[in-house]
């Protein structure tokens, strides 16, 4: 497929189809409706299924069922919808079922607003649902990256038998950009037959039980220790982009669309001779803490810029570990931090 001009939501949908996703369960919510709309038109034609659920609660449980058969499966929603899905996400993680969940974030808390936001950072990286579980969280900054991360998400979900979240903001969902979407063939993934529902024959008559209930506390502890072992293994998936960090005196930390805006500010300031660079986490969980510490040590300051009220700051502070002062600038959503505002913040640190 050649480069085509596409809306972010549709690019994510097509990327999923090209990665082999034939089943989609969702519920309408702004600003991500083009994904279910796109899927409802395409999937029945390729032998798959689109089901419009009665709620996000139902949608995520359909995803759990589809994932439980070892099938590539996706749902998409936006912030309040993801809150409703959090119960199911906890079960999916607890039962170790692969699934891909896209959150096209809008403002909060509560109904918040329908404009772009990054205010679900904590919900995505630190839970949302109950219990000790983790998602792999991928945060694209361009539509091309959204395409690639969406396709990678299906592989990661199968590889770790874990839910993977694409954390995009409303800008990424609604803007148009030239993208190239290639067919993605998964390679070397573990087979579904040893664990998935519907493969009893292939297992020679051995049943599969997918559950997260362990009434015996020792069994529950063992299950949790196994999960933690997996989450530590997932740490090797850490991804980031270090942008113009050479000789930087100030380090900016931002993800998604905000990082894209920050890039312009960095270029302008570099032209003026101000030494500033950026570390952009691509995986929000696992978080690139070692790289941030390495880059931040001894600098004049680390500035975290987000389209929320400072949710990533505590992760950056933990990573920097006192080796440089950390400050924050952001807007609550709907309003994006501007290039000019970011430049002013950097100048104030100098």
């Amino acid at each position: 497929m050649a480069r085509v001009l596409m809306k972010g939501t549709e690019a994510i949908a097509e990327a999923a189809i090209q990665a082999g996703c034939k089943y989609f369960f969702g519920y309408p919510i702004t600003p991500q409706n083009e994904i279910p709309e796109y899927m409802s038109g395409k999937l029945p034609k390729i032998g798959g299924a689109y089901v419009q659920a009665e709620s996000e609660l139902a949608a995520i449980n359909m995803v759990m069922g589809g994932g439980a058969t070892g099938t590539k499966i996706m749902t998409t929603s936006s912030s309040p919808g993801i809150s409703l899905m959090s119960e199911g996400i906890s079960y999916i993680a607890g039962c170790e079922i692969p699934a891909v969940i896209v959150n096209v974030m809008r403002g909060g808390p509560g109904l918040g607003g329908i404009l772009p936001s990054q205010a679900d950072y904590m919900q995505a990286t630190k839970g949302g649902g109950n219990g000790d579980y983790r998602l792999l969280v991928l945060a694209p900054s361009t539509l091309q990256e959204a395409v690639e991360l969406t396709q990678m998400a299906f592989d990661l979900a199968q590889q770790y038998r874990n839910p993977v979240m694409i954390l995009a903001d409303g800008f990424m969902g609604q803007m148009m950009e030239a993208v190239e979407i290639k067919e993605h063939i998964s390679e070397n993934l573990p087979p579904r037959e040893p664990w998935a529902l519907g493969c009893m024959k292939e297992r020679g008559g051995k049943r599969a039980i997918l559950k997260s209930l362990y009434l015996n506390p020792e069994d529950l502890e063992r299950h949790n220790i196994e999960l933690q072992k997996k989450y530590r293994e997932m740490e090797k998936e850490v991804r980031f982009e270090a942008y113009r960090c050479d000789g930087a005196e100030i380090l900016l930390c931002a993800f998604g669309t905000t990082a894209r805006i920050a890039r312009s500010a960095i270029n302008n300031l570099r032209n003026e001779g101000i030494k500033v660079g950026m570390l952009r986490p691509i995986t929000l969980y696992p978080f690139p803490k070692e790289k941030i510490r390495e880059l931040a040590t001894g600098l004049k300051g680390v500035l975290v810029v987000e389209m929320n009220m400072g949710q990533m700051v505590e992760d950056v502070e933990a990573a920097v570990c006192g080796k440089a002062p950390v400050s924050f600038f952001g807007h609550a959503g709907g309003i994006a931090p501007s290039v000019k505002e970011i430049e002013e913040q950097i100048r104030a640190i100098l």
Partner: protein
Amino acid sequence: MKEVKIYERPKSWAKDVHTHYCPGCGHGITHRLICEIIDELGIQDDTIGTAPVGCAALMYDYFDIDFCEAAHGRAPALATGIKRTRPDKIVFTYQGDGDLASIGTAEIIHAANRGEKLTTIFINNAIYGMTGGQMAPTTLIGQKTTTSPFGRDPELAGYPMRMCELLATLETPGFITRVTVAKPKYIIEAKKAIKQAFVNQIEGRGYSFVEVLSNCPTNWGMTPVQSFEWTESAMIPHYPLGVFKNFE
């Protein structure tokens, strides 16, 4: 003398397990019926169950078939995802009255209304058993529970919900029936109904729903015998047995 085996454990009953159910509980009877039907239809390797939250949460330990746990009330949505991705398999939900008629009302109505090719076994014992005997949407008027200590008052809690009748107002679902396991004569009828609900799915005929009036001797404060007498004398008048829809 030649030995003839006339009664044995169903093949799809897991080996060497004993249920955690209270003595006299209807879950054991209904579980056995489902296992017998799975055996008779020869679908053990092709059947996938979804376990509810409630007394039957551990039912996956007792069935030698694939199983997935469901969050409280969400089994019809979970089963939808399983069946849509594996239409070649036989998928059923097994849900209690708190699960299906309270927290999962939306899921059951919409799975039925989409005509998912699923089978639902709905155990109605007019109470929350697992959590210790609280009022359910199906608790009868005047019935005392731990959260209706003066008896269910329709002024405060409304009237007990009849799920078969409610679902039968929908155009899509194919087979809706109410049975009971209160006495042997009823159990024979119950087995026929549950078997038809599975056969419907094998034949790709759409959604089937079997409500089973059961009991809860522990939380009703009765002996097993008294409790099944109460199912018959108190529950059946409010929840009449019969077929409400059959692919008409």
